[in-house]
């Protein structure tokens, strides 16, 4: 679902006045919608112009100077807006001089002259003006038709190009399919062995493993509104932690592969998982991790869906493991 953001919200975003939730919403949209990103840039330029032209309200001006001017990159926007405004003013006055003043002069000279041909000249000028106007209208109509034809042609070319790109991608994906499938089988076999080892480590005396499991629910990306990954508190008795990985949207994958990496990107654990379960908050995949393999630190979990021997990344989850 795409959230709509108007110019006022974008201005508040640029001035650092939006709530964290809305702020991340705007950032999400910028990274998925190029047109929206360009709109944000355009609003930023307009804000800089308004500052230079002193069109901001006193409150906006204070907020602008407090937040916007903190960065050298954004101060550069102001410097450019100032130069741009001046250059445009100079260009406008030049165009005014070139386009309008001489014409006024010519008309004045026609009416002010004592020449006997003045009315004939006026009539000729009017005829010329009407003719020129008609030509101008025709020209504009033709230009628009050409523009429409061009854009239709471009659209067709774009569609062709997109089709070609898709075909190439499919070919490349197919060639990778077999090797990925083999890799997945090996990973599954390895993780099954690791799980068996973890289970035996968690049940040294044959007591119930349930008393030593800590369960946490993770959402994809970072927790909205705080920008902090989930903190997974591990007490001394905990031998296994269970992570419920909430799916961003309903999925129909028959199986999943979860990979756990440190903040430095080193793979510490990976495991094949069964289909998602329906929980109170939506679909989730359950990942069980032996505590022995999760020292204190930050982790990233990559969840991949498996279908027809192909793996597809569908979500990234972050957590910080802490010992209680």
């Amino acid at each position, binding site marked *: 679902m795409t959230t709509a953001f108007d110019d006022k919200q974008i201005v508040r975003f640029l001035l650092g006045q939006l709530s964290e939730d809305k702020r991340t919403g705007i950032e999400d949209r910028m990274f998925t919608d190029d047109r929206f990103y360009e709109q944000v840039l355009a609003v930023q330029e307009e804000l800089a112009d308004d500052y230079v032209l002193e069109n901001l309200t006193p409150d906006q001006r204070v907020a602008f100077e407090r937040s916007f001017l903190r*960065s050298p990159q954004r*101060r550069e926007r102001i410097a450019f807006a100032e130069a741009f405004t001046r250059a445009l003013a100079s260009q406008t006055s030049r165009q005014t001089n070139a386009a309008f003043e001489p014409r006024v002069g010519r008309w004045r000279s026609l009416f002010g002259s004592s020449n006997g041909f003045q009315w004939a000249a006026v009539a000729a000028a009017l005829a010329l003006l009407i003719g020129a106007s008609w030509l101008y209208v025709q020209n504009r109509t033709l230009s628009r038709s050409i523009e429409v034809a061009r854009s239709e042609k471009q659209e067709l070319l774009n569609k062709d*190009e997109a089709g070609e790109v898709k075909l190439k991608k499919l070919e490349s994906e197919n060639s990778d399919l077999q090797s990925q499938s083999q890799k997945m089988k090996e990973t599954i076999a390895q993780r099954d062995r690791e799980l068996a080892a973890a289970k035996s480590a968690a049940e040294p005396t044959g007591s119930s493993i349930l008393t030593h499991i800590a369960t946490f629910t993770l959402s994809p990306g970072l927790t909205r509104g705080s920008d902090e990954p989930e903190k997974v508190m591990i007490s001394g008795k905990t031998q296994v932690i269970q992570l419920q990985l909430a799916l961003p949207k309903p999925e129909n994958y028959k199986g999943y592969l979860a990979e756990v990496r440190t903040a430095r990107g080193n793979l510490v654990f990976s495991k094949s998982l069964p289909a998602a379960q329906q929980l109170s908050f939506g679909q989730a995949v359950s990942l069980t991790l032996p505590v022995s393999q999760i020292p204190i630190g930050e982790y990233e979990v990559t969840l991949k869906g498996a279908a027809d021997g192909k793996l597809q990344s569908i979500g990234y989850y972050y957590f910080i493991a802490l010992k209680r």
Partner: protein
Amino acid sequence: MATASRLSQRSGFGSSPWIRAVDAPQAVEAMESIPKKWSLTKDGFDRLLAALDPDRDVAAVYYERLRAKLINYFDWRDCPAPEDHADEAINRVIRKLSDGEDFRDIGIYVLGIARMMLLEIARTREKERMAFERPAFEHPTIPEPIDDEIPETSQRVSCLEKCLAALPERSRNMIVEYYSGDGPKKIKRRKELAERLGLELNALRIRTCRLRNKLEQCMGQCISRQEQ
């Protein structure tokens, strides 16, 4: 930093060399604590381009856009060295690609990485605060521009005038008309201009913003030529 930026011709915001010069010490300071464990190779960068689009030229455009988005992301989050952070985020994506990762949407993945880095940057600042016993996220004072850091406004204006004159007449008239007038008059004029061009007002706004960016690039090149 040895990063993707060396392989790209930068364009768009923040490309000014004097900004880089001003930021350099802060950038080094901020990046010191971010783990550097991997270096970019040409193969890695090629892999990124291939993941962005099979056509290398199209991929280069996507890459520039992604990098510009990241720079703005870190800048709007008040990070000390947005360009270096952006390159680091891209390097991390390249590393994942080199490990055989397959992304459904690189843009979303990059944003996830950028958010993770934001935490790392915040932690670095916190460590510094603890070390020097100064308040975290203190509002930096706005430094006065130093004469040789930012070119004279008159030099910029004169370059921009040349760049405006070099624009095709149609584009020049469009941008001049778009920005002329004041207050309600300006809004009315923009609506009329959009109607005449058969565009939505927002589409006209984006089109003029792109022209403005081109003018900024042209101005930068003009200033560089004059300084040589």
